[in-house]
């Protein structure tokens, strides 16, 4: 897994409370990412088994709102995310100072 800027932000949001489920728009707002970046990333993470998705149970108090799909880190995802974020934090200063664009800047979509 290559830790890109957007991925780092999504993992940071999800790792803040690993048990809390997030729906797409919630993650978009928290990680400040457009839908065109977030959903392909979630699909990849889900395919790699790092993120689990589940449908919201239909409840009475949703006022007719359709059920949402919620995402959360799997046990493996939590382990990988912690490791990757820790590595990114330790190598952050040289990466920012370096001339190479090894990772796209946060905010760049692709």
């Amino acid at each position, binding site marked *: 897994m290559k830790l890109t800027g957007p991925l780092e932000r999504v993992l940071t949001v999800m790792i803040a409370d690993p048990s809390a489920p997030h*729906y*797409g*728009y*919630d993650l*978009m*707002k928290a990680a400040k990412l*457009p*839908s*065109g*970046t*977030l*959903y*392909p990333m979630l*699909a990849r993470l889900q395919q790699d088994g790092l993120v689990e998705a589940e449908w919201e149970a239909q409840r009475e108090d949703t006022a007719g*709102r*359709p*059920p*949402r*799909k919620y995402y959360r880190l799997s046990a493996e995802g939590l382990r990988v995310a912690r490791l990757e974020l820790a590595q990114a934090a330790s190598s952050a200063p040289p990466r920012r100072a370096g001339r190479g664009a090894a990772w796209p800047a946060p905010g760049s979509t692709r």
Partner: protein
Amino acid sequence: MSPEPRTQRIAGWLIQTVCRRLPADVRAERCREWTAELPAILDDQSIRPSFLRTLRALSFCVGISWTARQLSRSARAASRRTRNTQWRTGALRTRPPALAVRAVRGLLIWLVVVAAVLGLIALLRTRGLPPSFPVVLVLALAVGFDCFCLADIARAAQVRYLPRWAWVIICLVQAPLGGIMYLSIGHISRARSGTIR
């Protein structure tokens, strides 16, 4: 506050439209997931004034269109990998020929067709038929073949290498060659496409 129903309807329709390009097995679920996000966007009171929420919903749809493109691309790549594995394990009788082989085969077929048509015209001239007859015959053959290719493009679950519209243009612009190239390169035969349909 209830979200603007008209915006939600339009955005829902947009999402449904872009979901059509997704593989059939995930289409309905993805469509349901993304449509379910719309109320949250249109109800988001942190975005003011309200027309900005509409813009946000529309930009969400643009991103969904990009996502659908990405997902269908990776599904196609996965199905290609599956086909290759199937060939190795013997599930497919023959290995799908390489692109260059198919292109050369297409060109050869085209040469044979052109030679056959020219021969037919020369033969008809000796029979004392009206001079317009060979022209009408060739036109009818070309139109018939084009119709066949266009119908095939329209009905195929998947076409290869180029998007459908590009194959349509190629078939129309270069009447026999375009169609032959589509059939030899872009067309996926029923026998081989069992796994990806």
